[in-house]
């Protein structure tokens, strides 16, 4: 973190913020690797590799065909270059597309049968794979009642899922939570019905690549009227060298259901950059609600920008039913390059989409991230709050789209994106697209700290604060709210981040 130590920090940026950013970026705690015998598919990408991945996952013929179709399309596509990220050209033939621990060749029946080395990996990361109530590393959780803190975890190690906890409890509630490879075998009708309906096969270059070669990921189905009894979580770990991870997650919240889903990810320190191209699809039916929280902590590369994960992610939620709701919360601290736009298609009337993001880039990290809110239904609402913090030589871009279609009568959007620069060598950028196609829709895009809630401001000022103090308090309060709204799983990360204030930020 030399970059921060040597850079002049301008007046007005408080020391706690600088320290917190330094803390987040200084030592990558998850940079160790697990020494384990692996089985690889041959390097490179061909029709045969796609078939091989499908075969390894014991997939039915229709799935193999789906993948091959995607691969053929991908071959005709051009790698996009519009994002404000700059990285050496990726050699897609110099990657492994499938890697699994040898001990996983015969799929264990339960987590008890999984190689202890693998289990130890997750233990070291603080991820509870035993069906225990206590979250590792969270203070005070020991005394918490077991019922209150249950989190079901699906652990994905390189290309395979090791297993999923609390399956019995979930089954009792009717919730399906398993790896996507299991779901393709066990619930083909559900997968067939929904896979690729939110992010079509040819949506974009990386999504198409993912469709061809995705190896594992999670599948969630919450039946009508069910409130999922515990948080669901997937933890992605890249371990093998020169190996891309292509996860695929599909979440379906049927009518009137609710689910909160968490995602975490880490990778070892390697000199070579590694590829991660994920697709997440969420379907939200009438009156259903999905909360999707991510703490993205891939290896960001070293101080000189060597190594790190290239994170090309397509995440999209389709609010199909009336009054459906989706909330994306993301804390982006890792990855050398991030290209990620969790989006909401607000199709149902009165549906709502929310996007809360804190992206911290340091050293040579580059993040181009944001959201798309597509308002199609009447009275749809969306809110975007994005905080970007840049230090060292990092570049941090907010890119977003708010689109109000002609039929989205009385739709509302509020967008606020703030950025903070620490040091004079980094950059912060905002590229919002706004398309308002009917007059009853109201779009407000603000990138100033002066446009916080007037009532709160007035209240603070009536108590004797000056305007600046009042704004700082309200903005900070809001930032903390987002972080505190993160589920307990992420309490550790969140605690580090709450010290960050946005005083002295630029729009």
């Amino acid at each position, binding site marked *: 973190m030399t970059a921060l130590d040597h850079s002049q920090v*301008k007046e007005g940026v408080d020391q706690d913020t600088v320290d917190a950013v330094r803390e987040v970026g200084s030592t990558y705690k998850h940079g160790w690797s697990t020494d384990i015998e692996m089985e690889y598919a041959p390097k490179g990408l061909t029709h045969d590799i796609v078939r091989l991945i499908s075969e390894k996952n014991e997939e039915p013929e229709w799935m193999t065909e789906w993948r091959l179709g995607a691969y053929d399309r991908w071959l005709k596509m051009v790698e996009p270059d*519009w994002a*404000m990220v700059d990285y050496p050209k990726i050699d897609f033939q110099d990657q492994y597309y499938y890697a699994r621990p040898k001990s996983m060749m015969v799929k264990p029946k339960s987590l008890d049968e999984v190689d202890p080395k693998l289990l130890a990996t997750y233990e070291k990361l603080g991820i509870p794979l035993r069906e225990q109530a206590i979250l590792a590393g969270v203070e005070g959780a020991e005394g918490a009642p077991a019922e209150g803190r249950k989190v079901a975890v699906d652990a994905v190690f390189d290309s395979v899922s090791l297993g999923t906890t609390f399956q019995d409890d979930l089954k009792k509630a009717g919730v399906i939570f398993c790896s996507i490879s299991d779901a393709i075998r066990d619930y083909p009708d559900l997968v067939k019905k929904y896979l690729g309906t939110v992010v079509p096969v040819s949506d974009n270059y990386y999504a198409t690549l993912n469709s061809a070669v995705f190896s594992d990921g999670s599948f969630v189905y919450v039946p009508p009227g069910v409130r999922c009894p515990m948080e669901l979580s997937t933890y992605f770990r890249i371990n093998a060298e020169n190996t891309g991870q292509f996860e695929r997650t599909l979440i379906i919240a049927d009518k009137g259901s609710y689910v909160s889903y968490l995602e975490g990810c880490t990778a070892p320190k390697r000199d070579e950059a590694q590829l991660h191209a994920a697709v997440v699809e969420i379907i939200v039916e009438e009156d259903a609600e999905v909360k999707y929280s991510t703490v993205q902590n891939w290896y960001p590369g070293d101080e000189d920008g060597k190594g790190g994960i290239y994170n090309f992610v397509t995440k999209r939620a389709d609010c199909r039913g009336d009054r459906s709701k989706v909330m994306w919360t993301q804390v982006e601290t890792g990855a050398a390059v991030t290209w990620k736009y969790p989006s909401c298609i607000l199709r149902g009337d009165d549906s709502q989409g929310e996007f809360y993001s804190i992206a911290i880039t340091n050293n040579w990290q580059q993040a181009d991230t944001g959201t798309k809110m597509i308002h199609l239904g009447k009275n749809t609402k969306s809110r975007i709050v994005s905080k970007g913090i840049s230090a060292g030589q990092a570049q941090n871009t907010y890119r977003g789209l708010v689109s*109000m279609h*002609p039929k989205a009568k009385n739709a509302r959007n509020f967008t606020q994106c703030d*950025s903070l*620069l*620490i*040091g*004079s*060598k*980094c*950059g*912060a*950028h*905002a*590229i*919002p*697209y*706004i*398309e*308002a*196609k*009917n*007059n*009853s*829709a*109201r*779009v*407000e*895009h*603000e*990138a*100033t700290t*002066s*446009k916080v809630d007037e009532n709160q401001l007035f209240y603070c000022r009536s108590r004797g604060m000056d305007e600046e103090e009042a704004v700082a308090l309200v903005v900070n309060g809001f930032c903390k709210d987002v972080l505190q709204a993160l589920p307990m799983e992420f309490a550790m990360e969140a605690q580090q981040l709450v010290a960050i204030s946005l005083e002295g930020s*630029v*729009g």
Partner: protein
Amino acid sequence: MALPKIKETATETRLAALSLPEGGWSEPARRAALARVQSSGLPDRRDEYWKFTRPDVLVGPDAPHAKALETDEGELFDSFDRLKIVFVDGVFDAQASDDLKLEGVSIERLAEIADQDIHWARDLYGTLEERAQTPVARPLAALNTAFAPDGVVIRVTGKPSKPISVVYHHVAEDSDPMLHHVIRVESGAEATILENGPAGARFSKCMEIDIADGGKLHHIRSQGRDHERSAVTHIFARLGAESSFKSFTMTVNGHLTRNEAVVELTGDDAIVHIAGACVGDGDFLHDDTIFITHDALNCESRQVFKKVLRNGAVGVFQGKILVKEGAQKTDGYQLSQALMLDGDSQFLAKPELEIYADDVACSHGCTSGEIDETALFYLRSRGVPEDRAADLLTLAFLAEAVDEIEDQAIAEDIVSRLENWLSRRR
């Protein structure tokens, strides 16, 4: 990289219909500009920079026919003492123009000075346009540099006693004029430039403005209210230390208008304000594309754009503030707002910030919506008829942009035009 075939063909077709003025000091600059057009090709709807505005009518070999509007509304700025330079369909009208002599300024015409071997404008002609071709190509501006046969060449050395007013009349239904103006404001000098009129069926105009340290330029224009005309205009400005450039544009009607302004703040403590008020009804697309580069300390930039849209009118705003590394203490502000008077209109915007310096204050705001029901109700409860109340609120909405005009008398003239538009609805 080779151009896509379709773009190459479109570009060649357009170029074949034009002839490049030969000889004199400007020819090398014109040839270089032509090369720029050939290498980037003319814009089409696949270009990201033309995402919201289809450039077809601006690019085709012939100008789509457009009738000149007959109106009994008096000419804008008529009540002001000014030096008039008149172009009819792009052709200089000596009879209607004043004598081009005024203390503190030299005014010449590009066509007249063209065959000289050397002229001060040589250092500027095409230079600022070329600088503005990165990071985004602006081929229609390069096309103008290559082919514009005339324009005014102004060098401000003092503080002229009255504004210089360029008037553009439109008569012929198929006129396709191109004008290229070059303006140099010397150190400590100050002038006001007025522009008004539709100029032609399809109008292309470039204005290259170089303001030396401490120089000041005010620019106020009105783009004429012919319904069918189309126009593409570019302002390229470079500002020295402690200089200032304030520009305001009113656009009333017109089938398609694309106004680009590219401003570089190269000296410390410089100030640029760019503002626009546009009102459109029906077949109307108005596009403001602004690119401001801060490359010096303690500069201020301000963009204020207001659009009133009805009956399917489309408003476009693409604004960008680029703060280069080291451009500390920058104060950048950008506001783009649309008021849609009915359900058919559209507002499409891309307000961008790109910042590489940490001690800056940059903000942008972008909103779109309809007339505030509460305010309307309030006015009606005070006895104001509904139509009148809506007009008042619309004018109040536009006022923030009109307020950018420093000269009160001119601002009032502009407001009266906007009021007229509201009362006749077109």
